[in-house]
């Protein structure tokens, strides 16, 4: 376990200021939900940022916001999770190569490497400590959290900086629409569940968290545990895995006050969440958040931001309610996410 001591989030919502929690809900009717970016000069020297692509700037800025929020200047480890890295840079190269192969501009190639953000953050902080990057679809951020919590358990680190970063582009949207991943037309994010059509509403975001061994005035909540479960030919058995996961943390499903589900408006896969909630958490309060940030490989970063803020304040904003149940208390939150019923993950967050 570890304390969540600082958060920095750049998302399609107004989340840049960590002292606020969803002060105004942004409504969009669009192909995908795009991040509201801050003025970067507050976070990055304009001379340095001139050549940086958008995702890298979002990553560095959110990392710095989280460190300031936690009052931490030098983390003992920097870990990032990203499903796709800098799509914009990769597309530049692919575009160049598909027209005519010729001498490339090296900058997009350098920036297309998935570990660019973790190393750029290290360069900004002059941090020589442990540094790694996970790139496994919707396990990317969760793998980073598991690594970071293990660093703390191994006593290799007291403060760990962990990021969840992904971007969307029109080209990538167009390509992945071909395999049914997304809705085929612009939709209103706040009316997402009314679409009842296959495909999710895509989004993006850059979230960084400072996990620490010490509880402080900046502490949001305790991240008790994280688990990823791959479903290969039915290998994922939630009826075994979930009680085990909770029992390891001395809890049972009945102790969970709120379940935050990764419901994303895709009628094909949202039923996986419905079954899960009905099976393990009947009568419990259910929340969702992907209508606010869209779906992307590291969207659970937004989910963890939501859980941490609900527990810290404590407040349970209506926009997050997926059912009518009002939780009696707000102490234990389970975040459950799945991608195509293959990549399932759990995060257990506790108020403190």
């Amino acid at each position, binding site marked *: 376990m570890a304390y969540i001591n600082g958060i920095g989030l750049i998302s399609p919502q107004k989340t840049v200021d960590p002292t606020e929690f969803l002060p105004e809900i942004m409504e969009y009717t669009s192909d995908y939900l795009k991040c509201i970016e801050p003025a970067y000069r507050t976070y990055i020297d304009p001379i340095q940022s001139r050549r940086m692509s958008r995702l890298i700037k979002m990553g560095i800025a959110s990392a710095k916001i989280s460190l300031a929020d936690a009052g931490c200047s030098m983390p003992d480890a*920097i870990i990032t999770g990203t*499903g*796709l890295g800098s799509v914009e840079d990769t597309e530049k*190269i*692919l*575009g160049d*190569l*598909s027209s005519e*192969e*010729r*001498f*490339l*501009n*090296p900058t997009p*190639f*350098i920036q*297309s*490497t*998935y*570990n*660019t953000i*973790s*190393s*750029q953050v*290290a*360069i900004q*902080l*002059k*941090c*020589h*400590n*442990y*540094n*790694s*990057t*996970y*790139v*496994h*679809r919707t*396990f990317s951020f969760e*793998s980073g959290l598991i*690594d970071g919590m*293990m660093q703390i*358990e*191994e006593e290799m680190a007291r403060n760990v900086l962990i990021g969840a970063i992904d971007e969307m582009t029109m*080209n990538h949207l*167009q*390509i*992945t629409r*071909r*395999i049914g991943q997304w809705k085929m037309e612009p939709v209103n994010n706040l009316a997402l569940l009314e679409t009842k059509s296959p495909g999710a509403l895509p989004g993006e975001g850059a979230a960084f968290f400072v996990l620490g061994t010490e509880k402080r005035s900046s502490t949001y909540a305790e991240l008790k545990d994280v688990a*990823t*479960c*791959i*479903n*290969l*030919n039915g*290998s*994922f058995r939630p009826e075994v895995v979930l009680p085990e996961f909770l029992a390891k943390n001395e809890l049972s499903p009945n102790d969970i006050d709120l379940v935050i589900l990764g419901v994303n408006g895709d009628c094909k896969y949202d039923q996986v969440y419905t079954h899960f909630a009905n099976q393990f958490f009947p009568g419990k309060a259910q929340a969702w958040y992907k209508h606010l940030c869209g779906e992307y490989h590291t969207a659970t970063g937004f989910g963890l931001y939501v859980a941490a803020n609900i527990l810290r304040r404590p407040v349970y904003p209506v926009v997050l309610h997926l059912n009518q149940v009002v939780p009696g208390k707000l102490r234990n939150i389970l975040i459950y996410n799945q991608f195509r019923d*293959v990549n399932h993950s759990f995060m257990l967050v506790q108020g403190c």
Partner: protein
Amino acid sequence: MPQRIFITGFGIISCIGNNIEEHLESLLQSKPGTGRVHYVDTYLKNELLVGEVRKTLEELFTLAAIPPTDGYSRNALLGIIAAREAFVNGRMNNCRELKTGLISATTVGGMDRCENYYSDFLTNDSRNAYIDSYDCADSTEKIAGLLGISDFVTTISTACSSAANAIMLGARMIRTGRLDRVLAGGCEALTKFHLNGFNALKILDKNPCRPFDQNRAGINLGEGAAYLVLESGESLGKTGNTPLCELVGWGNACEAFHQTASSPDGTGAYLAMKKALELSGLAPEDIDYVNAHGTGTDNNDLSEGRALEKLFGNRMPLVSSTKPFTGHTTSAAGSAEAILSIMCLQHQVAWPNLNFQERIEELSFSPVEKLMTNIPVNVVMSNSFGFGGNDTSLIFKKVNADIL
């Protein structure tokens, strides 16, 4: 007491062989596998020297023992071939009740197919089966599916140190009791994408690369895949496997200097090696052989050389880079070179640093020039450094008879 980590099997494919035996043979014969570009359709064909696995996509399907299927990248096939060899050698099909993980590493992922189909992706549905093969997780999930590994699956990308970090994560997950055994390594197929990318950085040698040579002129890129089976001491008791060696140290540090260049004094390299050494409880003089990252670039070899001098002083162990044999297999290099290092423990040899002629004038040591056989090798270190200054060092030790 934390679990110890034993290596009980491995598998490898690169331009010097399709399996372990072929690698050993090429290495013992000091026979490199690099040549002109044959399989990647690039305008740099006649310009660059690379280490390609000499198999077409169809031939790789045969080697991987799966029928030709849409949606498979060269990267995934290389991964499957090496992972399966390791899986078989480590007898991972036994003791299915053990908590088993797959940690794989790649950076260009399935780009080898996707770069050719990109305009189709944008304009028509003809190549939809390959859209999913684009990302880094695709090859990992294909390997996990074929081998039935599901307790923990993830993918790491820290550029050219990726596979070393996969091994390190596997070791830590066993040490902290999360898993009993792990199949860890990496795969990378050559692509126009990174051939052009490295070419744009002007760090490719058109001739055979010369790591640690005064006149070195850059990298020969290579491709391949390599996986190791890591087991806890407790797991050994159940599988009955005989350990090939023990993984006793690992260290990861960041240069925090420049996105693609190493610092002149090799801070990251030094810190990674030092951390690995500290964890192992060994002294610098216990290291018999270092398989250096040694890419052959001006920058890396001087930086790494200085870091080695700082760590070892005037008691420099045997050092060589095996990249002139295999080419730089980027995300697979960490696990491929870990295996070549372990072979030094098994066969009591030190691999030559091919093409070496003249010592770097700023450095006080030269690498191993000719194959050394019948020498005592008890502890080896394998270095892997990547863009972003992501530096990782691993230490493997011969297993003492007392634990067997």
